[in-house]
């Protein structure tokens, strides 16, 4: 179905800390793929494997495997720490960012059109063009466009949208962002 030229969907919404954390984590996953915990933990495990492979040589030359074993153990522990702690660290960081900006928690009205979004609240009124953002992620709960000019993230909650509206916005954003549009949690 072709995208309508005059699509315009207006939604009132109020963001919560949980919404922001969900959007932050989803966007970070796609905007900074090298910072994913699987990649970081993988790098540490590779280093651990390399260090472990030097144990026989270490035994042969120095009659002790302690240096290689220590490096191997440290890399494995680091991988485990990254795997288990990174989600919590990311969420805490997102919560801190959200709490530091009371403007984000204000009730607002977001109007989405094919080219841009207009956000209106009691204190602010701004327009963001889709071309200003670097990436857009759709999750089962929300749409999040990242690295905007006015605000780092533009979030649109699906719970405030009718299914038809959500589908129309999804098509519109997929067209506007093309290869920079990601859909998760299907």
């Amino acid at each position, binding site marked *: 179905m072709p995208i309508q030229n005059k699509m315009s969907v207006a939604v009132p919404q109020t963001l919560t800390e949980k919404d922001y954390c969900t959007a932050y984590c989803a966007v970070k996953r796609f905007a900074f793929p090298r910072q994913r915990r699987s990649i970081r933990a993988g790098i540490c495990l590779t280093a651990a494997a390399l260090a472990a492979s030097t144990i026989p040589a270490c035994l042969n030359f120095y009659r002790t495997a302690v240096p290689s074993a220590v490096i191997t153990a440290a890399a494995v522990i680091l991988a485990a720490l990254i795997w288990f702690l990174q989600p919590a660290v990311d969420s805490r960081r997102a919560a*801190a*960012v959200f709490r*530091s*900006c*009371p*403007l*984000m928690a204000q009730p607002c009205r977001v109007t989405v059109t094919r080219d841009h979004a207009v956000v209106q609240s009691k*204190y*602010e*009124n*701004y*327009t*963001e063009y889709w071309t200003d953002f670097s990436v857009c992620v759709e999750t089962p709960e929300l749409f999040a466009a990242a690295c905007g*000019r*006015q*605000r*780092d993230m533009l979030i649109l909650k699906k719970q405030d949208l009718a299914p038809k509206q959500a589908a129309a916005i999804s098509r519109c954003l997929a067209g506007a962002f093309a290869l920079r549009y990601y859909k998760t949690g299907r």
Partner: protein
Amino acid sequence: MEPVTVNFAMTRDDYMSGQLARAKSGTARTETIAVKIFGIFLILLAFLLLLTRTTQSWLSAVAMAGGIFLLFLCRPLLHAIVRRKAADDFEAGRCGMPAQTVSFDNDRVCFRTERYEGHIPYGMLARAYEDGSVFLLFTGEDECRCIPKRTLDKQNQKRVEDLLKSRMKQKFVQEGAHEWTK
């Protein structure tokens, strides 16, 4: 009282000063002091190693180089990197809205650009920062607006400072503006 209103377009120098101020405002004083203490410790260690006439004189040289770097070169180098990145961002057009009008009212600050209009009470600002060349108004931890001081005359600068001091109290930090730039 009449609000203080400025209308300006961001220049390359303004943007670089703003980014530098932002980096400085994000650095905790304790971090700076810790780096200096560690630098002094390394220099003392270098002298101690020299005095004890250790055979590993390279260790003393490394400690001395590290100490000098931390004490005298680390900060200027970081500032140079920030300024260089800011210049690159400005030239690539990644500096946000270049022209804006900012109005400091008694109870709120108003921003107006081509695509943004905000009337934000001082209490909703996360913090404010002033150095020798700019005022930074943080609407959140990750977002701030920069007002170059060149756009304000002395009298209006004083009025803005007084407004921010009285409305934001401890959330307004003045760095270096009175010690070495004036």
